[in-house]
């Protein structure tokens, strides 16, 4: 199968004054891949993501997202990606349908497309009778699933998930990952950060950031082999202990 690279960075760096938040990171992500982006708090994950999604200009280095340059083509990047942040990102005082229509509209989908896809989505989430309920009446797990569905509603090439499962119970997390697999199967590339190392095991490949650098990058199996560890947790701890900067 031909490899199609959707994220490509080359020595991407972000400096704030004397502080180098992201230092020379270079990696590639293939289409349909589930790419885990790990690192302790303060390792530079969030800064790196901000550069990739086009809301922060890199200090140096290169990167293309879905084939678009992060310096010059941020508008096109924004149209080709979806994003879900660690904070819950739907409007609590709008209904489920209104939220979907809003984000569909923001991403420039037409009314017909929004309407039909909205029905399908509600059916898939078993929420077909709850479309007019306010989002704040849903339990957290449901909200997260809905937020993810909304983030990929406009069929982006890549979806960036910043700690999407924070505070969610294990069963819902498992269901959430089923949705991620399904999206990846449909050809959407998943770029995900997480604190849960069991989730790192679900990824096709994992990178681990320490002090602004990528210290390790491979499939979970190979990383465990390389570091002679029983699970990803041990791999992560081995690398994270080397960190000199704190939170």
């Amino acid at each position, binding site marked *: 199968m031909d490899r199609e690279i959707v994220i490509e960075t080359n020595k991407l760096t972000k400096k704030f004054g004397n502080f180098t938040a992201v230092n020379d990171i270079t990696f590639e992500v293939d289409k349909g891949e589930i790419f885990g982006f790990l690192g302790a708090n303060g390792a530079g994950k969030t800064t790196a993501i901000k550069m990739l*999604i*086009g*809301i*922060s200009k890199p200090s140096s280095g290169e990167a293309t997202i879905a084939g678009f340059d992060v310096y010059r083509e941020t*508008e096109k990047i*924004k*149209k080709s*990606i979806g*994003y*879900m*942040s*660690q*904070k*819950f*990102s*739907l*409007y*609590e*005082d*709008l209904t489920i349908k*209104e939220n979907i*229509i*809003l*984000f569909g*509209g*923001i*991403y*420039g989908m037409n009314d017909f497309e929004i309407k039909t896809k909205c029905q399908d989505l509600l059916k898939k989430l078993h929420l077909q009778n709850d479309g007019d309920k306010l989002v704040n009446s849903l339990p957290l797990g449901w909200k997260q699933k809905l937020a993810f569905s909304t983030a990929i509603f406009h069929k982006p090439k890549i979806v*960036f998930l910043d700690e999407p499962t924070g505070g969610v119970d294990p069963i819902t997390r498992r269901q959430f990952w089923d949705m991620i697999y399904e999206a990846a199967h449909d050809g959407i590339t998943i770029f995900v950060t997480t604190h849960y190392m069991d989730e790192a095991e679900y990824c096709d490949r994992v990178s681990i950031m320490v002090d602004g650098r990528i210290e390790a990058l491979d499939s979970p199996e190979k990383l465990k082999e390389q570091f002679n560890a029983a699970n990803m947790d041990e791999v992560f701890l081995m690398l994270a202990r080397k960190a000199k900067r704190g939170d």
Partner: protein
Amino acid sequence: MKQFFTFIKKEFFHILRDKRSMLVLLGLPVVQLIIFGFAITTETRNCKIAVLDNSKDEATQNIITRIESSSYFDIDKTLTSNKQIETAFKTGRIKLAVVFQPNFQNDLSHNNKAQLQIITDASDPNQANTLSYYVSAIVMDYQKELNQNKNLPYTINSEIRMLYNPQLKGEYSSVPGVMGMILLLISAMMTSISIVREKEMGTMEVLLVSPLKPWIIIISKVIPYFIISLINVITILLISVLVFGIPIHGSIMLLSFVTILYIICALTLGILISTVTNSQQAAMIISLIGLMLPVVMLSGYAFPIANMPVILQVISNLIPAKWYIIMVKDVMIKGLGLFDIWKEMLIIIGMTTFFLLVSIKRFKIRL
């Protein structure tokens, strides 16, 4: 364009679903004005006054009876000498004194002319004005009746003296003041809160990652409050004209234009506040303490600027509401035109530009 309207619709949902805010947004101006107007009407009824009758004849008795029988006045004191007038005012019990010159009836029937004096406590200029107007109206009434069957008319001269504040500065200050305050509060506070709420909830991040341009996000957040402010202006003006009978002497077009300028100024101020804070509470406190207090204290709405220490007079120049209130008074009450208020207009436009530039700069730094 479709993006834009979808987004504005969402902002209206936010506002309409929050019943409590709706009530504050639309009810506050009405309540403010009504409370203010109510204060005026209760105080002018049964107001305590003093009478010094140096003549004690039929004509003066007649006038005094008419004053007493009106619902506006209670005669609290009957004075016997000019010296007592000042003391009576100093106790604060009376708001107005009527003084009849000696030989009132005599002057009236022989010279066709008589003198009386109306002295009011003008530390509350609005009230002083209203009260003295009532007394002169009663006297005029009496004079008309006397003149019904006469060829040579009688004239009773009522000489009005305003104590403490002879020029009556601050006249009609309530409506312009309430407008200056409400518009600033609603536009600046509500805009900043609604922008900061998105930051606090994390939805702002999602919006910034979306293809929506930042200025579209901001403008769509601002438009609903712009519309609500316009509704408030209309309510305030309707109440002031219909309930309080304050006339609009100048051009309504100009008044609206000036008001729109001021609303835009307040909105940009709200945007500026939203760029310096990340929590709704902070935005609210900044708006209340940083905007509301100075407007009430320093804009000339509650206290005359001329009476302030120099340093406060200088600071008062920085308050947009001050310039707006001046313009509203000029246009609405004095009936002045564009050429009389261009300076104030330029100041408001200048402030708006300044707020906008600083906000844009701060917004860019944040990213």
